[in-house]
């Protein structure tokens, strides 16, 4: 587990520490998942009243949570539509700017990442009210995009740093138009990053609570609905949502390890 440079005693302590840490990470999730199968009305593992799947059925009939899921997906798609072009433009322009003007622009574009989420939600809420748009799914999309676009931009920037510009220059020398070069060289080069950025944007948006709760108004997403359930009366239905999250994540992680691990062994 640990480095070859540590003494055996230190290694032992470190291994125990890591073990405890992993336990700290996973035990709560195990507890939460287990309670989804307890037929007791209040989420609990210590007051065990027998195994049941009734909370899964309850979730399937829970219109508000299902509608929240739909809303979350809509918001996440909206965020992708807004933040990928924004992040792409930002990255393309930054790579061509001089050091000084580039740094100022860069600071402005990265600042949302370093701003507390509630501030982004509040400022979007106030801004859009000036135009008569009350809090809702649209304002949530705008509030989330303000920082998710920054993440997208960082991904594009990293990719552009590895770009071989001579290819574009050669194409231009050979008489290709700028638009053609952009469509045939730059965009294909950035396409995998655009896909990654879209996935990241979707997950960030889907997960987001601190920004969304201020911007969402009378509407709700899956996450804000879960939050209000957690504040006003707990139910094992939320544990079922947790189980689904845990299973999906574990599946994704296992696939990733298997894909990543294979070429290393070969």
């Amino acid at each position, binding site marked *: *587990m640990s480095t070859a440079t540590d003494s055996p005693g230190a290694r032992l302590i470190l291994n125990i520490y890591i073990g405890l840490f992993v336990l700290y990470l*996973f035990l709560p999730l195990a507890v939460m998942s287990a309670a989804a199968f307890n037929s007791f009305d209040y989420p609990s593992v210590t007051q065990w009243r027998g195994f049941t799947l009734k909370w899964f059925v309850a979730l399937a009939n829970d219109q508000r949570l299902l509608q929240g899921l739909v809303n979350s997906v809509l918001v996440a798609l909206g965020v992708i539509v807004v933040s990928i072009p924004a992040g792409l433009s930002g990255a393309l322009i930054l790579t061509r700017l001089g050091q000084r003007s580039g740094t100022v622009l860069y600071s402005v574009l990265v600042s949302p990442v370093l701003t507390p989420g509630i*501030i982004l939600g509040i*400022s979007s809420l106030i801004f859009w009210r000036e135009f008569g748009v009350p809090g809702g799914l649209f304002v949530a999309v*705008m509030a989330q*995009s303000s920082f998710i676009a920054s993440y997208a931009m960082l991904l594009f920037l990293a990719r552009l740093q590895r770009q071989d510009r001579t290819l574009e220059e050669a194409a231009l020398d050979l008489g290709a138009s700028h638009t053609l070069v952009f469509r045939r060289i730059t965009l294909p080069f950035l396409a995998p990053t655009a896909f990654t950025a879209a996935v990241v944007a979707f997950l960030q948006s889907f997960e987001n*609570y601190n920004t969304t709760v201020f911007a969402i108004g009378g509407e709700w997403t899956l*996450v804000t609905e*879960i939050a209000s359930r957690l504040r006003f009366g707990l139910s094992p239905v939320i544990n079922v949502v947790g189980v689904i999250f845990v299973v999906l994540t574990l599946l994704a992680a296992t696939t*990733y390890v298997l894909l990543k691990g294979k070429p290393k062994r070969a």
Partner: protein
Amino acid sequence: MGSLARAYGRPLALTLTAILVLWILALILVPLGAMVQQSLWWKDSAGDLSLTIDRLYNDIATLQLDAGNATDAAKKAALDAEIATKQGEATALEAQELNPGKQWGLDNFTRMSSLHLYIFVRTILYALMVTALALIVCYPVAYVVALASGPRKAIILTVALIVPYAINELLRVYAWLMILDYRGVINGVLGWFGVVDLDNRGWIPFLENPSAVFLAMIYTYVLFMVFPIVNTLETLDRNQIEAARDLGASTARIHRRVIIPHAKPGIAVGCIMTFMLSAGSYSVPAIMTRGQGGDWFSQLVYRQFFESNNWNMGSAYAVSLLVVCTAFILLMMRFFGVGLRDIAK
């Protein structure tokens, strides 16, 4: 602009610039400005005004009674005229009450009650404590992950760290709520052994203690501390550690003189992210305390907006929070000598 047109051609350069300007204005700068502006004005308190209006209507009612009983025509006319004036006054005041004038100034900031100021300061201190604790907890983990031998082990460890992170923040907090609740896992297990008496509500009130929020917060934001440190430590040449050890340096000394100096930018970034997230976190305290523990500042901000419906005051609170976070970030960047480009991975 010229270099952009050269690189992408004029139409494309214009499109890109337009999108960028729109992003900066509509999503970043103007909303921020709108929030600051909102924090700088307030509406005249309507309390005195409505009292005056009530009094006017009382007078009118009395006068109407008098006018109804008056037998003298001239006296009746005088009373009617007085009623008309008072009615006019009341109508004017009502219009003012409905649409009070804006007053500009810093009053929203200075009017923060001493209790709220106390909560503000306490939240900042709590966030600093969470940051420090997270650093202590995460440093050994980052060290092991970064210097782990064998790529497979590194992958597995990384995945083990990412999996809990990929599960929704609220659900992770909820998991801790279940453990620390009055009838939660810990109290339940203690009950089995007869340490606490659950039937007579003799449980240990973990949730009423601020450390419950700390625990859940560290749990929630742990990766923002681990990953930056791992990123910097991965670039450390292990021969440096070997050399230091061969030269007789103790483990503590190696960490202090070789590893930690190398990890400095990562530590700075981790601290900045953890502080920013915990100082501004609404979800963790709102769920963990359930109104039983002490409030965090973010909860006050929320209430100003959605319970007191005082957006001006709420904006002032939000701006205060933003100022502290920005100051912390600048201080850390100065202190650790890192730039913005290091922060963004």
